[in-house]
């Protein structure tokens, strides 16, 4: 079922068909499908926003909110920025959209605690997206994974949204990290990836040979 839908949609995105407003209904229901079933299709979503751009009267605030929330779930990819560029001033005046913009801003700034506080204070917004919280946690773990060699358990739990012990254990296991006795979590031996490098210049013999040969 998912595959068939994806293929129908893919046909709607080729060539000039992309700009056919008659396709909007199918594309919009595809967005809702993604929200429910926790799948993601950036191109299809961008096509919807583009059709709204060309046909302002067909603009649908609810669908746009869903698209933006789905883009949040694909961090660290810059899908959200791409979506932002297709919205107009008028759309941004909508308070719902404004909330999501703010969420994106704090998420990009990696202010995770503030993010979770905000999200918990408006559960209806994010509840339409299945797997929203977990997708954000994936992003948090991505950033944590490249920044820390060891991190405090309590700090990690806060960054993940105030999760309980069991959930924390689940995420630690998922990323192959290790809980240590002193209340720390070992991430990875970053020393291997992050080393001081000295790049010196290398001149190939061929390049110098031309000069040496000519110096008669």
């Amino acid at each position: 079922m998912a595959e068939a839908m994806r293929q129908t949609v893919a046909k709607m995105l080729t060539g000039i068909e992309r700009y056919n407003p008659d396709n909007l209904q199918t594309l919009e229901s595809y967005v809702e499908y993604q929200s429910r079933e926790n799948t993601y299709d950036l191109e299809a979503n961008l096509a919807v926003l583009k059709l709204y751009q060309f046909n302002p009267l067909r603009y649908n605030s609810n669908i746009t909110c869903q698209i933006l929330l789905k883009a949040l779930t694909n961090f660290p990819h810059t899908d959200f920025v791409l979506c932002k560029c297709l919205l107009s001033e008028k759309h941004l005046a909508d308070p719902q959209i404004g909330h999501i913009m703010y969420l994106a801003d704090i998420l990009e700034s990696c202010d995770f605690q503030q993010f979770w506080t905000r999200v918990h204070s408006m559960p209806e917004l994010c509840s339409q997206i299945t797997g929203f919280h977990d997708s954000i946690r994936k992003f948090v773990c991505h950033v944590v994974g490249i920044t820390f060699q060891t991190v405090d358990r309590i700090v990690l739990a806060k960054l993940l949204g105030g999760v309980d012990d069991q959930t924390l254990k689940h995420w630690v296991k998922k990323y192959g990290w290790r809980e240590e006795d002193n209340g720390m979590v070992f991430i990875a031996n970053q020393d291997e990836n992050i080393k001081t490098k000295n790049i010196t210049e290398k001149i190939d013999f061929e390049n110098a040979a031309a000069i040496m040969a000519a110096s008669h």
Partner: protein
Amino acid sequence: MSYINDDYVENYDTYAYNGSLEYDPHSGEPHTETDYDRQSYNIPDMVKKFLTYFRNCISEGLLFEIQNLYESSFPKLTEQYFEKKPWPDETDIAYLVDEDSVFLILYKELYFRHIYARVSGCPTIEQRFNSFYNYCDLFNYILDADQPVPLELPDQWLWELVDEFVYQFQSFAQYRARIQKKTPEELEKLHTQSKVWNVLCVLNVLHSLVDKSKIKRQLEVYASGGDPDSVAGDFGRHSLYKMLGYFSLVGLLRLHSLLGDYYQAIKVLENIELNKKSQYSHVPACQISTSYYVGFAYMMMRRYSDAIRTFSSILLYIQRTKQLFQSRTYQNDQINKQTEQMYHLLAICLVLHPQCIDESIHQVLREKNYHEKMYKMQYGELSEFETCFIFACPKFLSPAPPPLDATGDYDYVKEATKRQTQVFMDEVRQQKMLPTIRSYLKLYTTLPLSKLATFMGPGPSQNDSRDLKEEIEALIIHLLCFKHKMKNVVWTRGTSGLEGKFQSGSELDFYIDHEMIHIADTKVAHRYGDFFIRKILKFEDLNRKLRMIKI
């Protein structure tokens, strides 16, 4: 081909019946009327001879001669006789070319292009409409044929044709958005003739040219080392269609960028490797324009490494071929403007994503005082970012016209640019602390979190009650942000510019272990060897030439 095709063809028919009536330059402005009258009786002999000869060359397909006439004779005559006024009306010169309809369409293309570029004041609404109808005629002629039309034009002309087509759309969109200064008649005309310069129409033309020439398939096969002619089909093998197809891809890149759709912009250039010499890349202006838009799109997608790479290679190319762009034509004006814009964008990217670049480009940045701008940006002066961005960005558009009930006070023209600037400035603001962190980390190999927090926190004179724990928490947020922002998608291989892997672009890297920051820096030694070798060889060459000169 699609639902849209009928619309502009329909308009064309309407135009044809009203042709002689609509195309009446008696627009009510007295002095242009008398100019016109004077002109129609006084076409210089040289111009008459030129037009007849030009038409003959085109009908006989003498490509080399056409190129010469197009690139030198036409501009020379323009400068000599028509510097500030239009070329003669088509009805006045039709007898010189036996009423050759194809030639007249091509002539009008040049006629309108000249009006847009050099005739003072903006084109009138009639001129805009008529130019559009002329393009319809031209593209209908090319696309509706069962077999490839027997027309051969130089690549330079074909590129400028497509480029101008997109440019005139851009110009019209901006004109349409300026509702304050419109007369009721103009507004009425805009409303009833809403298909003219409609964005869907422009897209349809570009897509049709792409599809007809099968250029995408050709490029795919070419990129994998095969023979593109094998998949080109009858139309695609013909040079006119092939090159129009290729230039239409660049036209789409530009159009998508103007509408803020950076993803589609880059997607359209699948299978085109930007700085590789290929059978398609003979027009420098096309290469430069392409690199400008691609680099800009990458920058907006936060793919700074890719943007820097794109800008660097084209700027190096421009440095080497500077002499080509010295003469004063509007095409060269555009090239020189884009070059300056690209230097601005490169400066912005280098501030956000410090990276080693070619020494000669560094030199230009130094000589032209870009370092001053970069210095200001590094020290968090947001207004400098905004100024540079606004100078360097394309002239964005919104595809839909202002609503019918729109009042005069809202500035529709500036809206699109404001939007994109906003998105960019949001990104800059999120990255505000990065340069400061970088400058501190550069000084150490290990640094405790608490110490850095104290460096970065407010001074002792301020709110002392903010305790160290809070400051460390705030610092960790900045450090996480640093890592996140410096790890972006970079193209490594593959046919699509959209592909790539996440790579950390920072020369300065770190990780946090317990309460300690461990810092790693990349020290790159200055590369002198390459520079010296190039100069030595150049000098040798000069010497050899000198010895051969006989006085």
